[in-house]
C-alpha cells in the first residue's frame, strides 16, 4: 500500500499539469459547496434564534366556557413539542392590557363588556427548527374550540419558506459543481491513462495484473480528492476569517449575530465527499478503460 502511495506521488509529479487541474477543480467545487453550507448553516441558526421563544397565544372561540378548559388543555399538552401551557382568562387578559396601557388611555375603562377571548399561552419546543413548530400550530388551529393561533413573528414562516427555496437552489448548484468536478476528474484520469498507454502495455507484458495497474490511479484519485477538499476548506476558512473579522469589528456592537464556521462534522463530511469524488472519478474511468 505504501509502495502504491509512493508510486502515485511519482505519477502526480510526472503529470503535474493535469493533476494540478484536477486538484484545483475539486478544491473549487468543494469551496462552493462548503460556502453554501456555511451560509445556510448560519442563516438557519440565526433564524432559529429569532424564533427561540416559541411562545404562542391560542385564542378560543366565544362558545368556550371554563368547564371545557381541562379537557382542551390536556388535548393541547399531549401534542408533540408543547412544553408549557397556561390559561389566560378573558378577565386576566383585560387586566393585563389595562396594566400595559396604564395612563395612556381611558378607553378600556369605558367598555361595558370584555371583548377579549379566553386564551391559552403555550410554549413550543424550538430546537428542532421551524417546521415542527409550524406543524403543531396548524394542529392546534384545527381544533373546534380554537379560533386562531397567534405566534411569534408569523412573517418568519413566510421568510423560512423563501429560505427553503433559496437553500434548495443552493444545493442544486452544489450538486452541479460536484458533478463538474467529477467529470473533470474522470476525464483527467482518462487523459493520463492514454498518455501512459505504452507504459501500461509494458507492465502487462512483464506480468502486471489489472489491479496492479489500476492501484496507483486509485491512490492518485484519493490523494487528489483529499488534498482538493482540504484546499477548498482552507480557502473558505481564510476568506471567512478575513470577511468576518471585518464585519464583526464594524457591526459587532450593533447586532449580535451568532456566525460560526462549519462544524467539525460538516468539514469531515465535506472532506469525505471530496475524497470519494476523486476515487469515484477514477473508478468509472478505469472501469471503462480496462475491461
Amino acid at each position, binding site marked *: 500500500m505504501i509502495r502504491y502511495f509512493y508510486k502515485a506521488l511519482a505519477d502526480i509529479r*510526472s503529470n503535474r499539469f493535469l493533476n494540478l487541474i484536477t486538484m484545483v477543480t475539486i478544491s473549487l467545487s468543494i469551496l462552493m459547496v462548503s460556502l453554501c453550507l456555511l451560509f445556510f448553516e448560519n442563516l438557519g441558526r440565526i433564524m432559529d434564534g429569532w424564533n427561540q421563544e416559541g411562545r404562542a397565544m391560542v385564542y378560543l372561540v366565544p362558545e368556550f366556557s371554563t368547564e371545557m378548559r381541562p379537557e382542551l388543555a390536556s388535548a393541547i399538552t399531549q401534542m408533540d413539542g408543547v412544553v408549557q401551557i397556561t390559561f389566560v382568562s378573558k378577565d386576566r387578559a383585560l387586566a393585563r392590557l389595562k396594566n400595559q396601557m396604564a395612563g395612556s388611555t381611558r378607553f378600556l375603562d369605558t367598555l361595558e363588556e370584555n371583548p377579549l377571548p379566553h386564551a391559552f399561552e403555550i410554549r413550543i419546543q424550538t430546537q428542532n427548527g421551524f417546521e415542527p413548530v409550524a406543524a403543531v400550530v396548524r394542529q392546534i388551529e384545527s381544533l373546534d374550540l380554537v379560533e386562531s393561533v397567534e405566534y411569534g413573528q408569523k412573517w418568519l414562516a413566510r421568510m423560512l419558506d423563501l429560505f427553503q427555496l433559496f437553500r434548495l437552489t443552493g444545493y442544486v448548484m452544489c450538486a452541479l459543481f460536484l458533478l463538474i468536478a467529477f467529470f473533470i476528474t474522470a476525464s483527467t484520469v482518462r487523459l493520463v491513462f492514454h498518455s501512459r498507454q505504452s*507504459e501500461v502495455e*509494458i*507492465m*502487462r*507484458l*512483464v*506480468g*502486471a495484473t489489472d489491479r496492479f495497474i489500476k492501484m496507483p490511479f486509485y491512490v492518485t484519485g484519493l490523494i487528489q480528492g483529499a488534498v482538493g477538499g482540504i484546499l477548498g476548506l482552507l480557502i473558505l476558512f481564510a476568506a471567512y476569517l478575513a470577511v468576518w473579522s471585518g464585519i464583526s469589528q464594524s457591526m459587532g456592537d450593533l447586532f449580535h449575530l451568532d456566525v460560526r464556521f462549519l462544524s467539525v462534522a460538516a468539514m469531515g463530511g465535506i472532506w469525505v465527499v471530496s475524497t470519494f469524488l476523486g476515487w469515484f472519478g477514477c473508478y468509472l474511468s478505469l472501469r471503462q478503460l480496462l475491461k
Partner: protein
Amino acid sequence: MNLDTGKNAIIRLFNVTKHYGGKPALHNVSLDIEPGEFVFISGPSGAGKSTLLKVLYLAETVSAGQILIDGMNLSRISPARLPFLRRRFGMVFQDFKLIPTLTVFDNVALALEVAGKKPSFIRKKVMHVLRVTGMEKKAHMLPPTLSGGEQQRVAVARAVAGDPDIILADEPTGSLDQASARRVLEILLAYHKKGGTILVASHHLQQLQTVVTGRSIVLEKGRLISATRLEPYAL
C-alpha cells in the same frame, strides 16, 4: 506426431499457424523444447521469429494449432491468469520496452513488483542483477540517457530478475557492437548454466553460435525448415 517424445518438454507447439490478416507469419510449426535447453531461432528478416516468441507469451494468439507451456494449454488461459503465465517468462524485447520515465532500478524492479515481492527482497535482487549486467552504476539514470547497449543490458537484467523458467530474447544483440553483444550473451549463458530455458531469436546467428551448445532452429517464410544441434565452441 509422437506425443511421448516431448513428455518433459516445457514448451510444445502443435501445428501452430499465425496469420496477420493475409499470408501466414507462422505456418504449421511443431516444436518441443526441453527444460534447460538453449535454442537459437534464426532466419531472414520477416521469417516469423518474433511472431514465434510472441505467441508463446500470448502477446499474439495463434490462428490455428496448440501451444502448451509446462503442460498448460495457452488457448485455455483466462485473462485473469495471463499475468501469472507471463511472470514465468523473462522477455528481452527487440525494442527493449523500458519505461522512459522510470529509473533503471525501477524498470528492473517492476518485474518483481508486479509479482508482489517484498521491497527489501526487490532492492537486493535488483542490485544483484544490475551488478551482473554491469549496470549498477547507472541504476538511478533514466533509460533515454543510456546508450543502446546499456538499454539492452537493462532489458536483460529485467528479464532475469524474476528468476523466470524461460527467457525469450528477441534480437538481444541486434543493435549492439561486438563487445556489448558478447556481454549480453554471457549473461544469458550464465542463466542457462543455472538451468534456465532460453530462446534467442536472431538473424545473425554466426555471432551467437560460437558461444554455446544448443539447438538451432531455422525459420523461413513462417516454416520451420531445419533443426540442428550446435556443437560447443570455446568462448
